[in-house]
């Protein structure tokens, strides 16, 4: 079945039930006052009866105290605390296996029946019990409520457009049953920006038309200056935005500063469900602080010691600057791996409207020639100090699916072969400057459109320009804006664009392979086919290349596959097609992410992987287990 390890061990992980002698619980010093004053119940009555006991080879049990300072570029980035906190119903562990976290256990039958069991006496951050009622409220009063969700439940809860049957078994057990397997369900719950299938019902009922008398609710709507109660409910019910102080949470830290501000403080959640082997309730660190600063200044501020843990806003090119501040400001810069298939990749638009270009871009030998006329080694040495990977756009070596041949196929710098391929296509005519001519007499000038956000792209494209010239191809860079780039590529005005490579370069066979197939309008190499898939055949254009059709078939086959072997085979075939067909031309990958870490901070891995999903940036390493060594 699915690679979901330890899901059935939930009971034993929570040492109590297994009879393992548990250390006495230790009250966090920062809460002692409140407990004494009677404002908070003592720790025994705050944590669940079966708390999640944190153990691990690479985890050192720590001590309470300190505050964790971070920087973000915009006020709405306080949602990153939800990402870093990473308390999920189920979450990825360091091996990218999905394990229960908020949940005590998950039972999966046939890949379609999911039974979720909560921890007994688990509580929200305001002390109210977290029970199956919170799941029921979401399903009945939010997801399928005609007023709040006129567009129906979110996509990850639908299989072939059909919602699950939802049952409340008892106070701590709920069940979702689909007619067919739903491989997207658990990954969506474990996501960096997760699918929330529960809500703090006791709080949100105060804003729901079904639970509140109309006049009282209208008064609230008026006071909040909203259009109606739906808009009011919508604005208070955003767990991911993390900006509503009154919304209870299950995360390790809870927002304590009311927006707007330039400095947000997050206090420990006294009801958090995880404890360490010594009986200390996590998180170790009492408060996290996010200072909002211009994103351009983050590197400068990090280098002057204003952060304890920072990766967002830092780029590889800041590495030397940061390194210089290490001694003066008592931090260390660590180099983490990134997990994108490519740091940047060229996307030939197979849906270009210009028929001459479209024909050329659809010619696989043309794409191969373009790739072989790129000197990836030079790019690596010039822009990345030789520390990156000279690879095509495919999975990274630390993915279980990796095969070395995908990295290099059609990606070795060989101008002779590239020129030969171009000649064979029939692009033999050249103009006075040695630039090849298109069949209709125009010069072969490729305009690469960029989102204009990354200055490294300009440097790399300059190097590509030089080597393509030697193959008789002229390259122009056209910086636009992100939305403009998308719109132009969807319209077919773009011939080629540059963007990141595969989103998930550390994919395993349980990750969805949909980004390899034409499934989204945002895919710059075949946006119109993506639209066609998204609209179930109503919009866009029908896929008319055999290999791309095969990718779609394989993608469909993956979601109904029942064994791990089948899934692996499907993944491998899809990656093989990509490596051979060069639907995107990867330029460089494995660019390192500098991470600034305070020297006193413990349990931060020396060399981690910095990725959005799966990974949730630091979330995978559970910042609630980080702690400060006292000097």
């Amino acid at each position, binding site marked *: 079945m699915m690679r979901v390890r330890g899901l059935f061990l939930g009971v034993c992980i929570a040492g109590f039930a297994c009879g393992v002698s548990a250390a006495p619980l230790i009250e966090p010093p920062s809460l002692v006052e409140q407990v004494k004053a009677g404002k908070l119940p003592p720790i025994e009555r705050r944590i669940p009866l079966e708390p999640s006991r944190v153990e691990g080879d690479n985890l050192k049990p720590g001590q309470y105290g300190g505050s964790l*300072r971070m920087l973000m570029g*915009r*006020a*709405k980035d306080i949602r990153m605390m939800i990402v870093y906190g990473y308390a999920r119903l189920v979450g990825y562990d360091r091996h990218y296996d999905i394990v229960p976290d908020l949940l005590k256990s998950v039972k999966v039958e046939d890949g379609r029946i999911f039974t979720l069991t909560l921890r007994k006496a688990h509580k929200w951050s305001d002390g109210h019990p977290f029970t199956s009622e919170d799941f029921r409220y979401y399903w009945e009063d939010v997801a399928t409520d005609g007023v709040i969700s*006129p*567009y*129906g439940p*979110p*996509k990850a809860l639908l299989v072939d457009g059909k919602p699950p049957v939802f049952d409340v078994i008892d106070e701590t057990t709920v069940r979702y049953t689909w007619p067919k397997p739903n491989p997207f369900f658990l990954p969506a719950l474990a996501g*960096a*920006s997760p699918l929330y299938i529960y809500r703090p019902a006791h709080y949100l009922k105060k804003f729901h038309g079904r639970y509140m008398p109309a006049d009282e609710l209208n008064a609230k709507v008026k006071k909040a*200056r909203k*259009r109606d109660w739906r*808009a009011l409910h*919508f*604005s208070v019910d955003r767990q991911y*935005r993390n*900006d509503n102080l009154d919304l209870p949470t299950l995360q390790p830290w809870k927002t304590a*500063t009311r*927006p*707007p*501000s*330039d*400095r947000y403080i997050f206090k420990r959640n006294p009801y958090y469900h995880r404890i360490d082997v010594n009986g200390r309730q996590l998180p170790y660190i009492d408060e996290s*602080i996010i*200072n909002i*600063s*211009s994103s*351009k*200044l983050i590197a*400068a*501020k990090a280098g*002057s010691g*204003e952060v304890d843990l920072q990766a967002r806003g830092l780029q590889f090119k800041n590495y030397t600057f940061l390194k210089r501040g290490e001694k003066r400001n008592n931090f260390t810069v660590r180099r983490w791996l990134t997990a994108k298939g490519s740091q940047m990749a060229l996307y030939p638009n197979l849906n270009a409207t210009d028929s001459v270009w479209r024909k050329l871009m659809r010619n696989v030998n043309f794409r191969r020639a373009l790739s072989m006329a790129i000197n990836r080694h030079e790019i690596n040495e010039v822009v990345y100090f030789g520390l990156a990977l000279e690879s095509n756009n495919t999975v990274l070596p630390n993915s279980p699916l990796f095969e070395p041949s995908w990295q290099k196929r059609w990606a070795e710098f060989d101008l002779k072969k590239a020129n030969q391929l171009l000649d064979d296509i029939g692009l033999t005519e050249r103009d006075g400057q040695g630039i090849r001519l298109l069949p209709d007499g125009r010069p072969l000038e490729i305009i690469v459109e960029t989102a204009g956000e990354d200055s490294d792209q300009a440097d790399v494209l300059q190097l590509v320009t030089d080597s393509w010239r030697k193959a008789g191809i002229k390259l122009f860079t056209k910086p636009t804006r*992100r*939305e*403009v780039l*998308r*719109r132009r590529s969807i319209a077919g005005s773009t011939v080629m664009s540059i963007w990141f490579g595969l*989103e*998930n370069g550390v994919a395993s066979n349980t990750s969805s392979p949909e980004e390899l197939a034409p499934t*989204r309008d*945002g895919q710059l190499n075949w946006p119109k086919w993506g639209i066609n898939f*998204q609209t179930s055949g109503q919009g866009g254009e029908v896929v008319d290349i055999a290999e791309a059709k095969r990718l779609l078939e394989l993608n469909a086959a993956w979601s109904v596959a029942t064994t791990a072997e089948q899934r692996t085979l499907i993944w491998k075939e899809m990656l093989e097609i990509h490596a051979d067909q060069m639907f995107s031309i990867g330029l460089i990958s494995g660019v390192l992410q500098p991470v600034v870490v305070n020297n006193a901070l413990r349990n931060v891995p020396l060399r981690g992987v910095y990725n*959005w*999903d799966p990974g949730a940036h630091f979330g995978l390493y559970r910042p609630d287990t980080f702690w400060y060594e006292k000097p």
Partner: protein
Amino acid sequence: MLTYLFRRLATMVVSMLVISFLIFIIIQLPPGDYLTTYIEELKAQGEVVDPKKVEFLRAQYGLDKSMSEQYFVWVSGLLQGDFGYSFEFNLPVSEVVGDRLWLSMVLNFSTVIFVYLVAFPIGVYSATHQYSWGDHGLTFIGFIGLATPNFLLALILLYFANVWFGTSIGGLMEPRFVDQPWTYDKVMSVLAHLWVPVVVIGTSGTAGMIRRLRANLLDELQKQYVVTARAKGLSEGRLLIKYPMRMALNPFIADIGSLLPQVVSGSVIVSAVMSLPTTGPMLLSALQSQDMYLAGSFLIFLAMLTVVGMFVSDVLLALLDPRIRLEGGLRK
């Protein structure tokens, strides 16, 4: 004088109306709206956005209405003191702006004072000691100030302020004072941070002001009444302050009108670079994410500042210089 005031006020109202219209059009000019930008961001992070949900959100934010309708809602709100709603912050604009408005005023006011304090003595010195080493030296420094890009100067000063004085980079105060009640330490911290942006924003204004004052004063110094006064035995210092300097003050006051917008717009870029808690960076990010009511309110505020600045300088000039008043009367 009264009719003069009345006419000026009437023009102000009309200009503000035209400006509000222009602002709204310009904010709407880039393709798409707040939601398009927002959705792009979600997509960039690998999230899949349901098209049906997008439509729902668009209706929630009132972005499905026609442009003229949106404009009317906004302007009628403005007249009632309601600045609209910020999409990005999910709060009414007035709450979002909060402290920023008056911190920008402090910053801009300090800059204007700085410009005057520095420009005045230097300008007078340059004029009275024309073509001396001092004049050449100060002119040289002034031109460098005029030619250096603000943001570059900002970054250099920030770096050295951090390395030498330990001032935290960016912002108007140490991070620990943010959102704290005002204390002596907090004020000191603000002062320790304030000088960098003030110097940076002020340099080009100062340089320009020195040149203008010098030129004006030079003109006056050649006039016959100066020769007469000197012949009557007035001491040089007294003479300078009593007559030509007063005449040369005109551009100083006329400049209030043009200096204000110059300082305010200059401070947008510098504030963004230095991440100051003023209106500048917020205006920039609001424009980028097309958070239209927030951006619109800021722009209206800036326009208001300019229009009022112009008005004040006109009135002051009219009060100060009878020639302006009388000429106004004669033309009628």
